């Protein structure tokens, strides 16, 4: 036990024995998944409350003090509803689709560093950013398969809209990430955070930051980019035929994705676990997660704020914004970053 603690505190992750590595991944992974799934329920409440306050309403306040038991009531309601499997659907894909969205969102968190010590990241991959991009591009399948397997017109329309939208915004998302990768000189999220110890990338990459934030909102299909489930045009879009817990998985998957994307934005552009100042009397291993969670909390609020502020895009406006503005701007940002790194070699992370 003492040896385990000593090893994971001093050695870099690649040199850990496989058993220690497995134990650390399982414990930290378990804690993250548990926290994430219970937080997702409360995010629903938070979103309803914040939306209500922004619209001069009260919001849910019947279940428990300040409506704090509302998520439990929601889960009980969803669990006891009939889990219908319409006779016209493609059974296996219909069941698999909601599982995929949860899996891809949760797995991405494995590469996010929560703090300075090596054991506060589940797996410090040297291709961390690519891992995140790969999983986020796989998330599309969940929506497409839900749309196709439902065998219904509205679901198919929602699936098609989602595919086109997510493919379009994936390009500008990865392109703006590349500029940050060039500054850090590594694809590992841990190295990217270390590169921001003195200056956060949001200051060096203002344009990249804005492009990335807009792209991830489009990727997560939330308002104002929620065309795949626009309720006044195509009922509920891709999840029209879903009910009970399978619907809840889609619903929770969206919130898990919001948490994940907030983690990624804070890690890549806002210095991750680096804080503005040292909090007194608190060990460094706890200080990192506190700062990171504070930034994540802000971005979760930001996502809700955006939803309450902007109306939904028209479809051609969405495509025009994606292809005619976001992608050229992100390429421009990439080129400008490259030129600046050549002019001022101290900026770049490449030795």
């Amino acid at each position, binding site marked *: 036990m003492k040896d385990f603690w000593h090893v994971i505190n001093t050695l870099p992750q690649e040199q850990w024995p496989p058993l220690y590595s497995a134990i650390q991944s399982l414990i930290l992974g378990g804690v993250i998944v548990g926290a994430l799934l219970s937080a997702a329920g409360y995010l629903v409440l938070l979103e309803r409350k914040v939306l209500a306050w922004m619209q001069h309403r009260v919001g849910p306040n019947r279940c428990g003090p300040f409506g704090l038991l509302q998520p439990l009531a929601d889960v009980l309601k969803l669990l006891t509803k009939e889990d219908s499997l319409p006779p016209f659907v493609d059974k296996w894909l219909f069941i698999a689709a909601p599982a995929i969205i949860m899996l891809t969102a949760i797995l991405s968190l494995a590469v996010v560093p929560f703090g300075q010590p090596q054991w506060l990241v589940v797996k410090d991959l040297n291709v961390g950013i690519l*891992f995140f991009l790969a999983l986020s591009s796989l998330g599309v399948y969940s929506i497409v398969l839900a749309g196709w397997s439902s065998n219904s017109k509205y679901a198919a329309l929602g699936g098609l809209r989602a595919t086109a939208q997510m493919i379009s915004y994936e390009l500008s998302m990865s392109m703006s990430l590349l500029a940050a990768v060039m500054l850090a000189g590594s694809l590992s999220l841990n190295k990217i955070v270390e590169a921001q110890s003195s200056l956060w990338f949001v200051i060096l990459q203002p344009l990249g930051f804005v492009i990335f934030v807009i792209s991830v909102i489009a990727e997560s299909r939330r308002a104002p980019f929620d065309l795949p489930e626009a309720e006044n045009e195509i009922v509920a879009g891709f999840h029209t035929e879903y009910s009970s817990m399978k619907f809840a998985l889609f619903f929770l998957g969206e919130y898990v994705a919001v948490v994940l994307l907030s983690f990624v934005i804070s890690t890549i552009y806002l210095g991750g676990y680096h804080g503005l100042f040292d909090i007194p009397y608190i060990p460094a291993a706890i200080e990192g997660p506190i700062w990171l969670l504070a930034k994540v909390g802000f971005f979760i609020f930001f996502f809700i704020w955006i939803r309450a502020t902007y109306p939904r895009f028209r479809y051609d406006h969405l495509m025009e914004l994606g292809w005619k503005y976001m992608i050229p701007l992100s390429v421009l940002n990439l080129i400008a970053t490259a030129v600046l790194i050549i002019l001022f070699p101290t900026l770049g992370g490449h030795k």
Partner: protein
Amino acid sequence: MMQILMFYPSAVIAVITTLMVIFSKNPVYAVLYLIMSLFAVSMVFWSLGSPFLAMVEIIIYAGAIMVLFLFVVMMLNLGQRRVDEDLRPPSGKALILPGIFATILLVQTIACLMAGHPQGGTQLLNDPVALGHAMYEKHYLGVKLAAIILLIGSIGGMHLGRAASFPDTKEKDLL
């Protein structure tokens, strides 16, 4: 040990799912099996010590290209006649060329297995930095040629899709 545990199951899955691509009757299922096969191949890359190639395989093939395939296949409504046609066994003539290629590949694979070690330098591809150096220092001509081909392809695509190709429509309607 870990390598063997990862390599052989992924390799077996890759072979089975690739066969299922050919034998499944529903085109959407065929595309999904192809995605699984690409996944398995990416795990094979990973187990051979190249996580970068594994991730790129998933991002480009499974994440981008296969989504477009699925997009098109979903839109197709083949109809019973076409399905029956597809299910007929292929004629003898159509099997000659694929047969030759498959034989060559099989012989090569067996030769590699006999030699006892994988051909090519997997060590070089171990981390993304080494791969970048190899691509942009040794093989930059190939990289540039590929870039030019992609550029030509995208210009060609825009030319075919421009408003003048469809005399009756205005540019606005195409958006």
